[in-house]
């Protein structure tokens, strides 16, 4: 900016911009393709995102929320806005889960980020009950491809909806807890929560 005189014009205060942002979200209606918010949990701030079809993404801080949002813009739609109100129910259910007051998520899911075998695996994971575990081999067998143990591991590592689709309940056949996209400590914390 090359004119000092105009510096005296008032800047937009953050309160006004917040209010205009909220008004934009309200007015956007069906033109908003991806709504997101964060939810504070004992495992850090989770990013949750939903389309009109349902919850499409849950992401741990380790995945990098900015990167996750950029990927959603590229793969789903760039019409992405922070719209906490649209995810109130998701946030409440996650709060209840971490408080030990919810065993089953009652949410509509949008599985468009998982295709083919990975989606079959996610469907099998949803059948593993709260507090129970299954081995990677058992999940592979349940999908009808018993040799695909490694592919089950990959499907879990790329689960777009961790916690809600319980890939943390899949452990190694020797009893070791195995890898987790939120880190092994997060996996252990979830298994401990569900065992109590």
């Amino acid at each position, binding site marked *: 900016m090359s004119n000092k005189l*105009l510096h005296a*014009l008032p*800047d937009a205060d953050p309160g*006004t*911009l917040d209010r*205009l942002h909220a008004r*934009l979200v309200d007015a956007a209606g069906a033109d908003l393709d991806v709504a997101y918010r964060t939810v504070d949990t004992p495992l850090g701030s989770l990013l949750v995102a939903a389309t009109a079809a349902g919850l499409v993404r849950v992401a741990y801080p380790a995945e990098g929320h900015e990167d996750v949002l*950029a990927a959603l*813009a590229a793969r789903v739609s760039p019409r992405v806005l922070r719209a906490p109100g649209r995810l109130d129910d998701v946030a409440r259910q996650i709060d209840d889960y971490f408080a030990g007051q919810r065993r089953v998520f009652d949410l509509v899911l949008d599985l468009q980020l998982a295709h083919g075998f990975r989606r079959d695996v996610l469907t099998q994971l949803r059948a593993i009950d709260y507090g129970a575990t299954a081995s990677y081999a058992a999940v592979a067998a349940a999908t009808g491809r018993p040799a695909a143990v490694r592919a089950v591991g990959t499907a879990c590592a790329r689960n777009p909806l961790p916690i809600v689709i319980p890939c943390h309940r899949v452990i190694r056949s020797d009893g070791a807890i195995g890898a987790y996209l939120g880190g092994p400590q997060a996996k252990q914390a979830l298994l401990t929560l569900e065992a109590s």
Partner: protein
Amino acid sequence: MSLPPFETVVAEHGAVVLRVCRAVLGPADAEDAWSETFLAALRAYPRLRPDSDVRAWLVTIAHRKAIDGYRTRRRSPLPVERLPHEPATADVFPERDQALQSAVAALPAKQRQVVAYRYLADLSYADVAALVGGTEAAARRSAADGIANLRRTYRKENPDE
């Protein structure tokens, strides 16, 4: 290369677009113009080329919305109903800033637009000319005239500046 989330567009350019709307339309209509601009931008966003100048694109939409708003107000002499939570102008601008705001409001429409697009939105004179019509040289002259006018009116009321 793909488009960033629209949230990033609002975060990066929301304040500048509001300043432009306030300068061009005045504080009373600025928030409605901002809302219409970003709603139209959200709708059109997936078709924007990823290498576009996003700020120039937003200012173009705001410019068209401002023209539409001006035409609507001319057609309907009744005052447009305001949202109850919209703050009064006096709360938004301290006295000194308000003097500059009124000096901007007193400019002829074209000078006001050119000054806002060049000095608040930082558009090139070529972009400014494409928006308001006329040549780049004419846009340059309008901007210079606008600043000179502004200095005259504003300084008259604020001799210390």
